[in-house]
């Protein structure tokens, strides 16, 4: 089964979404991330969406759910690299990514999660 790779950097988990995910792939990622947070005792999750030119409510919910589960497991989630057109669309869609911190890029995202490295 195809999956999106999750990298570990110290206590930080890093995911770069580079494909147009179908719903099943997004759900698998959500499950994989939750599992890895527990397994690695991660304290931070960084999701890089700079390659996503579409974020719809399903993906948005996957991201929010991941952040919520991470929080329960005492980890912080940062989403980085949101494309401007995506940001504009999300606002109009009415999608507020609750519980999700956003940062401009990976460096800023890591420094936001800095204390976990």
């Amino acid at each position: 089964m195809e999956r999106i790779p999750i990298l570990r950097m110290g206590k930080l988990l890093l995911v770069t979404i580079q494909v147009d995910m179908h719903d099943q792939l997004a759900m698998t990622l959500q499950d994989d991330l939750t599992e890895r947070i527990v397994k690695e005792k991660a304290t931070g999750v960084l999701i890089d969406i700079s390659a996503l030119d579409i974020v719809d409510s399903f993906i948005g919910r996957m991201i929010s759910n991941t952040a919520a589960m991470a929080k329960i497991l005492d980890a912080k989630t940062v989403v980085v690299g949101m494309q401007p057109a995506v940001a504009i669309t999300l606002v109009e869609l009415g999608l507020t990514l609750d519980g999700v911190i956003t940062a401009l890029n990976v460096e800023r995202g890591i420094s936001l999660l800095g204390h976990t490295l």
Partner: protein
Amino acid sequence: MYGEKLRSAPAGSVVLPIKNDEDVVRLRKLVREQLISIGFGLVDQTKMITAASELARNTLKYGKGGEGHVLKLKESTKVGVELVFTDDGPGIVDIDLALTDGYTSGGGLGLGLSGAKRLSDEFNIETEIGLGTTVIIRKWKAA
């Protein structure tokens, strides 16, 4: 008359099945190509593809599968695109409720229908209980 069967696509439409997850991904790609060929800018592309993604997912999840139609539109002062999402599923019991932000009958975020309406210039929905649902959205740009 829609609802009795899938709404038939007018001549010139590109028709795509919406029967599974991968179809939704394919549809997003197709819509992107069509929008680019009409000359829509990036923000409008993103809005319409996102709307299409929401509606296609509704067709799949609630409509039990159906079809998507993409039609290029042309009038004297403007050009545009029409996207149709049609199914012969159970239909929507209360359209106003379904169009309310946050209302979901399927554990989603409840933003798909209302969001698609906000993201497009024109929005139409026809539904009949037991017969099916058809949602039509359009976006225009100056010719």
